């Protein structure tokens, strides 16, 4: 088997724009699942609304494409009713951090045994490029035409504070590392949160001076800094450049878990 076998071949190609990173994240997730040897009938994909949330529709397993921001409570219901299922949630930054923020922190607090993969493109892609809670200060979007004035969420720190058992962040450039992180997340009991920073060439890139998709991917690559290195910088009191994307494994711990098979 390979990750290709997990796709609904009759639905491809998918609706994502050319150069969108979401497809990459789906590949990595399915590759990790393939390595996990999960059975298709025992795996359920859940998502909310948005670009990222269209992903389960392209996967052969049972999948639930739900209402905006509510993927996590739906997943909680599934996992609590059938703890034997493997539940994976695909979500986006607007879906998870804005409308679903409350559900997110509570799912982390419960530490329910699901894997949450957040495709963070820092913008609302499906509705045409509005600012989201993770849009960086100064970035342009259709609702922040003069640059976003609001500070952005750091989703990983939020997940750690709320109690998730495994937290990691990678970008769509780091496919191998991301695949590994998703796999470790799936192996870890409790809520695993993997934030994947992705490029959105159509809505984010076009407005923020990334003329080509590759420019944006290059930005993700060059602005990434491993967490270990970042902590060293912090220890030595050295300044870290602005807009640094801290990547790597943030935490792996063994808080009590809900939703394990009885």
């Amino acid at each position: 088997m390979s990750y290709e076998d997990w796709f609904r071949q009759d639905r491809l190609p998918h609706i994502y724009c050319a150069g969108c990173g979401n497809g990459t994240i789906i590949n990595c997730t399915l590759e990790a699942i393939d390595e996990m040897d999960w059975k298709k009938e025992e795996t359920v994909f859940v998502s909310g609304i948005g670009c990222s949330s269209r992903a389960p529709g392209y996967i052969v397993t049972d999948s639930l494409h739900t209402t905006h921001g509510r993927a996590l409570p739906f997943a909680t219901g599934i996992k609590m009713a059938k703890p034997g299922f493997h539940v994976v949630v695909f979500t986006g930054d607007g879906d998870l951090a804005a409308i679903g923020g409350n559900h997110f922190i509570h799912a982390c607090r419960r530490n329910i045994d699901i894997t949450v993969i957040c495709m963070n493109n820092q913008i609302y892609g499906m509705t045409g490029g509005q600012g989201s809670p993770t849009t960086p200060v100064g970035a342009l979007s259709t609702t922040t035409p003069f640059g976003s004035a609001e500070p952005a969420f750091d989703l990983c720190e939020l997940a750690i504070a709320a109690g998730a058992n495994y937290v990691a962040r990678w970008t769509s450039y780091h496919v191998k590392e991301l695949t590994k992180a998703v796999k470790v997340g799936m192996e870890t009991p409790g809520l695993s949160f993997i934030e994947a920073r992705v490029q959105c060439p159509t809505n984010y890139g076009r407005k923020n001076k990334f003329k080509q998709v590759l420019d944006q991917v290059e930005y993700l690559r060059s602005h990434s800094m491993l967490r270990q290195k970042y902590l060293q910088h912090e220890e030595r009191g050295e300044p870290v450049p602005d807009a640094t994307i801290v990547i790597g494994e943030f935490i792996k711990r063994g808080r009590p878990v809900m939703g394990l098979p009885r």
Partner: protein
Amino acid sequence: MKIEIDESRCKGCNLCIAGCPYKIFQAGKKANRKGILVPLLDRPERCTNCRLRHLYGRVLCGVCLMTCPDQAIRFREERPGETVKVAIEY
């Protein structure tokens, strides 16, 4: 084993160009029937996975596969009788 780009799926985003350590993928120059510039393969016989996968018995590299957001790149076994180009490393 060889690399293949599925033209029916490729959207011409050129992300494969960034990933490949051998720079096998080159930006396409001629639009296909759908108006998409599908990347060209520059001496694909250099690909590590194509050369050594059977020797090692596992996927080597495969970054282009994972990166391609449109699932358009795949590795395919040569058909019997198909000519195979071999890259020789010195």
